[in-house]
């Protein structure tokens, strides 16, 4: 007899496929092989006062963070955020612009061009991630212009919680680029209706598994 498939199993596999596509896209941009771990997916209820969002972030994601985001609306309303430690971003930016010098790999003085690169790469990755899931679940999304910002991990909770969103899908990802690991996370803020829409589409998918 087949084991029962949980909603989390389906969600994890959907993200696994779309993160794989995002990695392939990223690999094209920086012209390096990228290895990715299988993401863990957690559904977090922000209404729960005991919930500490930082506690869900791995310890390696600490200090100053660089966050690239896009918001979406229409059938789903939410915001997808790609989060990486800012001190790892210099090497990544250098790879994007084919700059081989690693002397300033921890330089955190980011220029407008650096922000432009991170914003655009975040846009491409998040579009791939969210768009592929939308395609798979047949949910249309309309995006707003991407943004990028830097802030400290301790301020993350305020930024994420001070919104109309009630739920968070948290994905942990590790990019292994050229031998160095960059730990990151993807936080997708959703309204309760949007989370329910995704879960109901997943239930339809699950039903089809047993036909």
């Amino acid at each position, binding site marked *: 007899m087949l084991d029962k498939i949980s909603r989390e199993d389906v969600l994890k596999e959907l993200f696994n496929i779309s993160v794989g596509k995002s990695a392939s896209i990223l690999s094209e941009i920086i012209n390096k092989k990228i290895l990715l771990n299988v993401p863990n997916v957690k559904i977090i209820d922000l209404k729960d006062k005991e919930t500490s969002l930082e506690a869900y972030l791995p310890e390696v994601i600490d200090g100053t963070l660089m966050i690239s985001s896009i918001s979406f609306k229409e059938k789903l309303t939410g915001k997808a955020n790609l989060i990486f430690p800012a001190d790892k971003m210099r090497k990544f930016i250098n790879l994007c612009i084919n700059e081989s010098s690693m002397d300033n790999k921890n330089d955190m003085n980011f220029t407008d*061009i650096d922000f432009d*690169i991170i914003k655009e790469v975040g846009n491409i990755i998040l579009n791939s991630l969210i768009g592929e899931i939308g395609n798979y679940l047949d949910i249309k999304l309309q995006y707003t212009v991407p943004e990028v910002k830097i802030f400290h991990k301790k301020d993350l909770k305020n930024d994420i919680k001070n919104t109309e969103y009630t739920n968070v899908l948290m994905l942990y990802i590790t990019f292994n680029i050229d031998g160095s690991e960059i730990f990151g996370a993807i936080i997708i803020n959703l309204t309760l209706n949007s989370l329910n829409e995704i879960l109901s589409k997943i239930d339809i998918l699950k039903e089809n598994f047993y036909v």
Partner: protein
Amino acid sequence: MKLLIIDDSVFSQRMVASLIKKHLENAEFYFAKDGEEGFLQYKSIKPDYTFVDLLMPTISGGELIKMIREYDSNAKIIVVSADVQKSVKDEISDYGIVAFLNKPFNDERAKYICNMMRDDSNAR
């Protein structure tokens, strides 16, 4: 050949231009950072081909394509977008564009589009 690249990301503008330059010798590039500037540039330059991103401030790529086609029904527009949604591709393709390419704009896509532009130019 005059090419107008409209994208709010300078990184993407340069990526598209540098890859096209590799495959098309006589390309002359013009850039705009949003839909509003893109439309003004279009009217003043009258490019042979216009590369348009969809997600941009002021006027979106979709709106811009409609404006350009109203102004010039023969406009040749190539969409270069990060949006991978099938529904978006279908909707935008209905606007009579030449091609819809997903970002990142890579060597393979550049070669394909340059061959197409060269063949089209030779046929005229």
